[in-house]
């Protein structure tokens, strides 16, 4: 491993080393606060390690990894999100009586998996990253062992993830059998040389889609999402909604660009059907839910559908749109889950719609944050979500995807309905004499984090230019 390799992969190595050290720390002395502080430090160091890595871009670590602007940007995104989730986690686990420290091993480990995905451009590293991510997630989802739903969710995820990994592997094998390559550019070149996609490769792609689609939680591989979101500890749900999906999406983008996916109409159609189905199924099923975690799960399915629309537009703007949307979606999702975390008490998570009745009049501040997050998910102006959705629609119009855009518009309206349903609930007059599980005082750290997220959310909604320029520049490099 050369020096340049070492520096380029700095963030990854830092975080991974930190996991090992923190394991030793726990072995020496169990202390929630120390472990927590150390993990925060680890994320910060990994984030700073991005700066020297910028000197060497674009840099490939043949044959598995590539570090360019795109991967560094997403590395930053993943690490920042992980950091924020970690910030929100402390109180949540402190209030619950299980052993807390191992959580701080698993979360950075899962983040490491996502980081591997972000820099990978080879089937091997893809699978490696995916498995690091998945295996850590098994543990994380079932972390609150005393809770029945948590266990159930963990086992469900274990079985389905293992199954989908098997499909993914089989798909990779089929693609390899024909092209003789496992690195993305190699596959692209081999296919271009052949001039068509043979059935075996198509079947391979289809099977890979099952594996990838499962991680992204798109229809028809979405069944797990609501149960896992509901059962997992809230910070873990936030992690699954953002980092796990985002990491996978980044590989998908790289793969699709490298194999020139737009040239093959079959792949396009497969993804288009998945996109439309995700939008409709996600929004439709969210309509009748009473549990906010489940609503968020279904809404995230729909959001992946929106992202796929930009993906399918086949223009450079589309890729930019995805990156921007991802940033907006990360902030918004973490913010929404953050509100849930802050509002949950040690007795029960605040998850039913009724828990939020009249919340605005009791906790005006948190309710305002939640309203901002939901409006951003709905794509209403002054929020990052609006600019994101605008960007996606713009990409779609640019690529003449009229049908997909109409589907997106219809779904935006459906989506709006359940978002405003939650908002309306928060502004209702609280029923008198009702027993609520919501706690009297809210943690300070959580509130500050939420405030920062809201500021970023509105900042991006009002002045998106800087972020756009960054993304545009970065996307020029990879296409």
């Amino acid at each position, binding site marked *: 491993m050369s020096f340049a390799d070492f520096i380029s992969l700095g963030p990854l190595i830092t975080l991974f080393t930190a996991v090992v050290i923190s394991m030793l720390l726990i072995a020496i002395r169990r202390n929630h606060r120390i472990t927590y502080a150390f993990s925060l430090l680890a994320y910060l160091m990994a984030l700073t390690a991005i700066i020297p890595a910028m000197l060497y871009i674009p840099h490939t670590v043949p044959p598995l990894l590539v570090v360019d602007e795109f991967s560094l940007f997403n590395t930053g995104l993943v690490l920042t999100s992980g950091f924020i989730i970690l910030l929100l986690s402390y109180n949540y686990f402190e209030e619950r009586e299980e052993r807390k420290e191992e959580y701080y091993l698993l979360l950075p480990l899962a983040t490491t998996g996502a980081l591997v995905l972000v820099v990978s451009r080879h089937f091997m590293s893809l699978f490696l990253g995916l498995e690091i991510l998945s295996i850590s997630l098994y543990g994380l989802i079932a972390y609150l062992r005393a809770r029945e739903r948590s266990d159930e969710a963990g086992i469900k995820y274990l079985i389905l993830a293992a199954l989908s990994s098997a499909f993914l592997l089989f798909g990779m094998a089929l693609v390899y059998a024909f092209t003789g390559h496992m690195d993305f550019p190699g596959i692209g070149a081999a296919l271009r040389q052949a001039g068509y996609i043979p059935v075996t490769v198509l079947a391979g792609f289809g099977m890979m889609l099952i594996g990838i689609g499962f991680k992204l939680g798109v229809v028809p591989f979405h069944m797990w999402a609501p149960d896992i979101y509901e059962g997992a500890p809230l910070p873990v749900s936030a992690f699954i909604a953002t980092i796990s999906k985002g990491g996978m999406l980044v590989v998908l983008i790289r793969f699709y660009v490298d194999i020139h996916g737009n040239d093959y109409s079959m792949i396009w159609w497969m993804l288009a059907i998945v996109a439309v189905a995700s939008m409709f199924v996600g929004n439709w099923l969210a309509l009748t839910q009473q549990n906010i975690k489940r609503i968020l799960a279904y809404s995230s399915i729909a959001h992946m559908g929106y992202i796929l629309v930009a993906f399918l537009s086949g223009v450079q703007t589309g890729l930019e749109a995805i990156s921007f949307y991802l940033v907006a979606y990360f902030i918004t999702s973490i913010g929404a889950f953050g509100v849930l975390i802050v509002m949950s008490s040690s007795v029960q998570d605040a998850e039913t719609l009724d828990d939020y009745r009249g919340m605005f*009049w009791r906790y005006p501040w948190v309710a305002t944050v939640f309203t901002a997050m939901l*409006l951003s998910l709905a794509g*209403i*102006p*002054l929020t990052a979500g*609006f600019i994101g959705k*605008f960007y996606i*629609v*713009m990409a779609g*119009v*640019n690529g003449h995807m009229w049908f997909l*855009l*109409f589907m997106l*518009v219809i779904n*935006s*309206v459906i989506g*709006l*309905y359940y978002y*405003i*349903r939650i908002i*309306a609930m928060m*502004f209702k007059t609280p029923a008198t004499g009702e027993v609520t599980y919501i706690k009297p005082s809210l943690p300070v750290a959580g509130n500050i984090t939420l405030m920062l997220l809201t500021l970023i959310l509105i900042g991006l909604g009002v*002045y*998106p*230019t800087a972020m*756009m*320029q960054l993304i*545009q520049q970065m996307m020029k490099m990879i296409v």
Partner: protein
Amino acid sequence: MILLLLITIPLAGGLLSWIAAARNTLWSRYIALACLLTDLAIAGQIWATHPASGGRWLYQYKVDWVPHFGISLNLAMDGLSLLMLVLTFFLGALAVLISWKEINQRVGFFHFNLLFVLAGITGVFLTMDLFLFYFFWEMMLIPMYFLIGIWGHEHREYAANKFFLFTQAGGLLMLLAILALYFIHGANTGVYTYDYFSLLHTPMQQETARWLMLGFLIAFLVKLPAVPFHTWLPDAHTEAPTAGSVILAGLLLKTGAYGILRLVLPLFPEASVYFAPWIMFLGVLGIIYGGMLAYAQTDLKRLIAYTSVSHMGFVLVGAFSFNVLAYEGVVMQMIAHGISTGALFIIAGALYERIHTRNIQEMGGLWSKMPVMGSAAMIFVMASLGLPGLGNFVAEFLILLGSWQANRWITIFAAIGLVVATAYSLRIMQKVFFGPGDRQYALPDLNKRELVIIVALVMAILLLGLHPQPVLNTSQKTDYVVR
């Protein structure tokens, strides 16, 4: 710069009055009132001093916002915007006044929402950048949603949701059309921009232009509202608090009309001519159908709401007549309807405060109890049915005069609408103020605050009817599409 100020004053005022309410709710009301009166004074000052001759554009202000996409903070004011702004701040200030006693819960948040709606409306009337237009268009929605959903009557949530979904669906279609226009303009000229002035005269095929025009038009037809997109309106108007109804009827509907005048006609002149007969037909349908439905209502606010559908039909007929007479009539109608319908909603609100019902079957004989309110209502009901000497007469007369040159049959049916208007208007007076009443107890007549509001409105409607020339002069300073 002064244009930016017009938008930022209510924004800042909204935040300030929300904060102030924590200390003292009275401050919150005074702050809101002061902001709107300041804006009214600025707009009035511009109106009083703007040169009678010279260019159309009185003020312009432009800075880049997202240069990457060709989005700029592009504000401009011509005669049409100016008139609409004066109306906005006038009704806005009255809306604060009528809520003085009606709204006594969550006062700060109420004024925050009120001022934000008004800021959004101001933005819509001023912006010359299509992205910004959509931005402000959406920005009006959320606070309005809260105004209806929190301070409304019994079925407020249903009404608020319906309002939100209808307008949002229309708005998204407009967004698609805006984006398509953006890309077509970019592809044909190489300049990617949302600037209104650049997008005028975008070269494109007629087929495309028609589709795009429909995208814009549906958003505005929903807002206007035209039959068959009107079903949100009676619910929203009925369930909203009085201030909300005034703003909905007086201002929000006008943004739809304004959008047609400002965007649909100038951007797609040929397509507009192509669809004109159909749209005028929708307008006439609205006039007559809205009027008939109004006649059938028993809920006073619902009745007034349906009269809006009827009156807005005239706007549609006038806007697609393509001659200056009709346009002046349309602008006049927008203002006169804003004032007369706003006033009727205020009276309905005042009645509700006193007798706690909106059902006109349970009213009757109220003239003898409240003669002042009765005579005020008489004036506005007469305005609504188009009595000469009041603003609405001038407006509808001009529209009919203009549309006669464009389409005779449409005009004839639109004129029949005036008869329907007479029927429902007189029914209001008959059922509410005349006829037998079984109330033995005394009811308080208008108090000083309400008197100030009503007198201001009466003055306005009389001035519009008797001396409409200043308004007509100003309205000529805009960009009409004449065939």
